[in-house]
């Protein structure tokens, strides 16, 4: 009896030791150090990882960071939800990162976490999707929201003959940029295109499978649908893939914001006539340089501040601490082969 107990006890201790070794064993530090000897640390936190749009923009950011001799890191959640971004903001604060470049999943929800990071000395730059202006230090906008909304509406109107039913396949329901564009699109439709009716807005959550299934559901639920706008690169790619194998190919117009690499096949086979975007690599590049300027103190986010952004030239800060990249660009069969992102 006693022998059994002692043996069990010994086994328990051995197991604990081995479990302890398991915990100790695998963590060799190749950690991104907070302030590695004076180099500016910049961490990119996109809406979620595994999204080709953010892969490109963060690669642009990485190029910029390497150009000015800083340390680059990219972290992000699997799903584009605001509470999933908070732990990464917290970790950045703990690590003492100099600048955090975020594409926000929600305008207000991450503000508390950002506040803690800011009091730990981190500069916060948002790009692509903003938070509410009092939360962050600077916002890098890819194009004016009005410009994006107008180009989308103009394209769909041209493709369906300016009358009929359309639907919008969006990303996450709370994404700041999506909601801004959708509101402006609705205004534009009401003002300039009275014969076009917006029947539905569905959300694909920037997940390929969800967007694919939602497209199928849209076509089933609205048999008279003539066009779909998808202002998200994941959504338009999934919708194009569904449309190209469905009987609605060519009958339902599809446009939105997409990357040339993902859309090339569908433009060539006629599923999609034209779509728009800007260069996400430039966006990330500009965001990284803006972050560096903030960290160095060259700018403070006030309107009129000027800073230099490497090969893109010099930029001025506009109202609401926003920096504008440029205008959206329309891709179609004639020019899509020129671009490789």
């Amino acid at each position, binding site marked *: 009896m006693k022998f059994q*107990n002692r043996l069990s006890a010994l086994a328990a201790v051995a197991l604990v030791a081995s*479990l302890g070794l398991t915990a*100790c064993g695998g963590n060799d530090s190749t*950690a*991104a150090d907070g302030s590695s000897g004076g180099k500016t640390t910049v961490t990119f936190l996109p809406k979620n990882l595994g999204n080709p749009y953010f892969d490109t923009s963060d690669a642009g950011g990485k190029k910029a960071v390497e150009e000015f001799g800083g340390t680059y890191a990219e972290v992000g959640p699997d799903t584009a*939800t605001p509470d999933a971004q908070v732990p990464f903001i917290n970790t950045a604060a*703990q690590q*003492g990162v100099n600048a955090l470049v975020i594409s926000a999943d929600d305008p207000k*929800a991450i503000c*508390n976490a950002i506040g803690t990071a800011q009091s730990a000395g981190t500069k916060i730059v948002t790009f692509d999707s903003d938070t509410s202006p009092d939360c962050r230090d600077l916002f890098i906008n890819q194009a004016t929201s009005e410009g994006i909304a107008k180009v989308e509406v103009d394209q769909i109107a041209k493709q369906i003959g300016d009358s009929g039913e359309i639907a919008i396949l969006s990303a996450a329901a709370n994404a700041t940029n999506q909601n801004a564009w959708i509101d402006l699109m609705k205004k534009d439709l009401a003002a300039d295109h009275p014969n076009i009716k917006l029947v539905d807005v569905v959300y694909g959550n920037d997940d390929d499978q969800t967007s694919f299934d939602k497209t199928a559901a849209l076509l089933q639920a609205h048999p008279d649908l003539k066009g779909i706008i998808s202002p998200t690169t994941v959504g338009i790619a999934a919708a194009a893939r569904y449309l190209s194998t469905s009987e609605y190919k060519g009958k339902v117009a599809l446009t939105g914001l997409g990357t040339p690499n993902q859309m090339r096949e569908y433009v060539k086979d006629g599923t999609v006539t034209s779509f728009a975007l800007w260069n996400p690599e430039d966006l990330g590049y500009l965001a990284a340089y803006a972050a560096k300027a903030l960290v160095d103190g060259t700018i403070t986010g006030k309107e009129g501040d000027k800073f230099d952004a490497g090969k893109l030239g010099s930029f001025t800060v506009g109202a609401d601490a926003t920096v504008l990249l440029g205008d959206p660009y329309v891709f179609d069969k004639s020019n899509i082969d020129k671009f490789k992102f």
Partner: protein
Amino acid sequence: MTSSVLTRPDTPATRTYASYSRPLWQRVLLTREMAVIALLVAVLVWSNLNVPNFDGPLTLYFLFLDITPILLIALPMTLVIITGEIDLSVASVVGLSSVLVGLLHHDAGLSIPAAAAVALVVGAVCGAFNGFLVSYVGLPSLAVTIGTLALYRGIAVGLLGTTAVTDFPEKWTTLAQDRIGTSSYPVVLVPIAVLAVLFALLLHFSPFGRGVFEIGLNDEAAHFTGVNVERTKFWLFVMTGAVSALAGVYYTLRYGSARGDNATGMELQVIAAVLLGGVSIFGGRGALHGVIAGVVLIGALSSAMRLESLTVNVINIVIGALLVLSVMSTSLLAWLSALTSGRTNGALRLGKRRQAAMHHRKGDQ
């Protein structure tokens, strides 16, 4: 048939009281709970020394904020698992209460405390539904809670769609994250400590708690010794529902966002922490100090790994492996001790050989 048939197979020498009693230090220290606590201390010490920024002021603070919902739910979940049942719907109740707080505050204009109270009541009702189906209708808790997991999560998502309510008064969101004075300890530790003490008293020092252990060991026997099995289980599920709703209120205020899919997957983290803390999945044994250590251990490991810039997947692999190992270790230990006393029916035999079979056959002649 001679009397040797009636001779019982060799058992250890007549058991005396002395054989059962071990010195206090052994009874306290050589337990699974202590193993987990020792492991926790080892991980904390190692991380403090080796992981960059772990010794910073923000680490403990974020650690406690992160583990609060899991710790809250683990407390009643321990009791549920000790009775041999399980409740997989806890994360869905968190999501539902989160949605209710958001909706009631935003659309119905209720103040946060009022919305929270309603959410708590709804959580208790959800738990009561679970409890009713499990104890009074007699359904297996695994099936019921898989169904209610989908049902409650579905109601949460259905009520709010895929939007999130993120407009919460700053007074409450900061309270959820406030510290005690200027220390690293958040204010939420106070209600957690109070609840932990209450549950410990309930489980280890009250007749209700003794009933819980009895049900886990043998619920028919418990019934005959006077424990009201149905009522006990029912109230355990109600407690789990109410505490999950409380965790939901905290989660909403801490992240400032009420979404239908908040805390998806949290039930697995809670169960992993509870099982890691030494509670047996078969029911009948467990203690709260082990569970609390288990929750903090998982939190500390996640925190350390995040600071090492290890991605979420590695963290998940480690937690999954810990869960499997900790549960297997009970079986392993039982097998090892069975080996040494030779009770393995022909498998590897070490130690004294049992003569049971031989005796029996001899008796037949």
